[in-house]
């Protein structure tokens, strides 16, 4: 077995970047912390470049860590999402008295975990990636230490996360017992032969439950609104987008690809979860009075849409899944960035009433927010529409027309609460003062980038669709 560690490089590079920022933080005076932002961004860019440069390299550690096109696709997604999260948090972090350097370091560290999750071809390695990511994000949720809500959010996230870890791990143990390995290739080989069916089924379902907790699928979603509401807004965005994307990356590689032979066993369960998740997420989002909580429920609903792609399966389903992950990342990050812009010293400014009159005071922010809301609701020609189109098309092509119908009905419900935000911004007066461009240039850059991406992915989705297809085709 040749020792080829090239596949490990993107994660290793990210880890080095995290350590560099951590050490640099010690030697940077308080008013020059901007250099940490640029160092973090450079680290992320370098990691993305390394991933692209060595795409298709031989798997490391006996093929347990792969750098195939699929992993590279997700590494790029994580790098961009982490970069945007850092951009939108610069002013937020300074105002809240959060230790800046450590904040960026934790984001980079959780990105290391995500990269491992997307590259892992072994359940234990996947588990280690999952934990590396989760532990960093638990801390991030509690970073606003002068705020009781933040601590409470971290506590709830930690307890639920650790609980879910237990299930996930027990599932791995049972699968190990049934097939004699945790290596996904070897498990897939064992699936062909005789096996302990009961152990295997139980293991698969426990792993499913563990992942369902992470992507916030109903009925394992109850922690989401509280945790998302209490955490600092940029962290919420990071949790809603990057953590979910990482969990879906694992879901795609493990369930869609390696456990294809077991489809008939897990598909009905995932289908039921998808329907429940979409419906609950959308119905409960209607009742919220805070935009941040509404976005939390909306992220649950979108997890449901993404699960449609898992049920549909095959190349078409997986392609729709990857494309929707990217579209969802653009519009959700943007929406949370606008919420972060409304924060004033100690207030979150995330209620619907706080958005009133934003269209007159900050036309750019209001216009961008309108774009994100319309895109989340699925209006053409924005990213959300194109993504949903491919999702529902995949569902119909796979013979799950009922899922597509329920998905469309759910989108109709969602229009109500997304448009309410736009209504508040343009039809009402009052509300809070948002950050100006001069005061928060990084944040405006993040909003601008996500707004352009939302429109671009809607009008010219071809590039991203081909990239998704290439990523799926590279799974062996």
């Amino acid at each position, binding site marked *: 077995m040749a020792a080829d560690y090239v596949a490990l490089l993107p994660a290793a590079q990210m880890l080095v970047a995290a350590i560099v920022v951590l050490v640099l933080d010690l030697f940077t005076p308080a008013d020059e912390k901007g250099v940490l932002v640029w160092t973090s961004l450079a680290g992320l860019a370098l990691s993305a470049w390394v991933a692209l440069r060595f795409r298709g390299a031989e798997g490391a550690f006996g093929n347990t860590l792969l750098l195939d096109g699929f992993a590279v696709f997700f590494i790029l997604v994580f790098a961009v999402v982490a970069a945007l999260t850092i951009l939108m948090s610069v002013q937020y972090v300074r105002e809240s008295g959060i230790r800046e350097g450590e904040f960026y370091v934790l984001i980079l560290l959780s990105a290391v975990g995500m990269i491992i999750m997307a590259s892992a071809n072994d359940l*234990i390695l996947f*588990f*280690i990636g999952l*934990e590396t990511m989760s*532990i960093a994000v*638990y*801390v991030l949720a*509690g970073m606003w*230490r002068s705020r*009781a*809500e933040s*601590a*409470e*959010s*971290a*506590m*709830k996230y*930690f*307890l639920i996360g*650790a*609980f879910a*870890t*237990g299930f996930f*791990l*027990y599932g*791995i*143990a*049972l699968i*190990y*017992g049934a097939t*004699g*390995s*945790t290596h996904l290739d070897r498990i897939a080989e064992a699936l062909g032969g005789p096996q302990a069916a009961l152990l295997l089924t139980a293991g698969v379902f426990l792993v499913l439950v563990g992942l369902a907790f992470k992507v916030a699928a109903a009925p394992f979603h*109850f922690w989401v*609104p*509280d*945790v998302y*509401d*209490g955490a600092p807004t940029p962290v919420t965005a990071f949790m809603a987008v990057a953590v979910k994307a990482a969990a879906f990356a694992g879901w795609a590689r493990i369930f869609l690809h390696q456990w294809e032979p077991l489809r008939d066993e897990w598909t009905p369960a995932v289908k039921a979860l998808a329907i429940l998740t979409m419906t609950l997420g959308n119905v409960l989002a209607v009742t919220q009075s805070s935009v941040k909580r509404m976005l939390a429920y909306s992220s649950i609903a979108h997890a449901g849409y993404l699960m449609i792609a898992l049920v549909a399966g095959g190349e078409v389903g997986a392609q729709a899944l990857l494309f929707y992950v990217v579209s969802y990342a653009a519009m959700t990050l943007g929406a949370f960035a606008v919420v972060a812009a409304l924060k004033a010293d100690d207030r979150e400014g995330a209620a619907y009433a706080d958005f009133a009159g934003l269209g007159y005071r900050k036309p750019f922010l209001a216009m961008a927010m309108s774009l994100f809301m319309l895109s989340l609701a699925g209006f053409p020609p924005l990213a959300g529409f194109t993504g949903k189109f491919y999702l529902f098309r995949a569902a119909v092509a796979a013979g799950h027309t009922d899922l597509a119908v329920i998905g469309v009905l759910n989108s109709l419900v969602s229009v109500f609460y997304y448009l309410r935000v736009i209504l508040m911004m343009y039809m009402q007066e009052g509300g809070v003062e948002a950050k100006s461009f001069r005061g928060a240039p990084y944040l405006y850059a993040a909003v601008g980038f996500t707004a352009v991406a939302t429109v671009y992915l809607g009008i010219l989705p071809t590039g991203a669709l081909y990239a998704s297809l290439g990523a799926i085709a590279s799974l062996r």
Partner: protein
Amino acid sequence: MQAPIEYYLVLSAVLFAIGVAGVVIRRDVIVILMSIELMLNAVNLTFIAFSRFMGSVEGQVIVFFVMTVAAAEAVVGLAIVISVFRFRQTLDPRDMQLLKW
């Protein structure tokens, strides 16, 4: 003579169930943390039992990983508990009502 593997599996399943019940029922964050540790250790027992009966060392190596992760998790968990306690002087999850479920 060796005990059959079923004994180990049943024991670890029972331990895991006790851990889950503890998380769901108990009203003290520290006890909930202990219950989570119990769940993880039940899993460790399963790994070791399988590893021994299949004669593969893989399962035992995994246990080391799990223990390391559990230790890291406990550190972060207790730190979070302390930061909550500074605001609240109680560890009963029912009192954590700032964010409504």
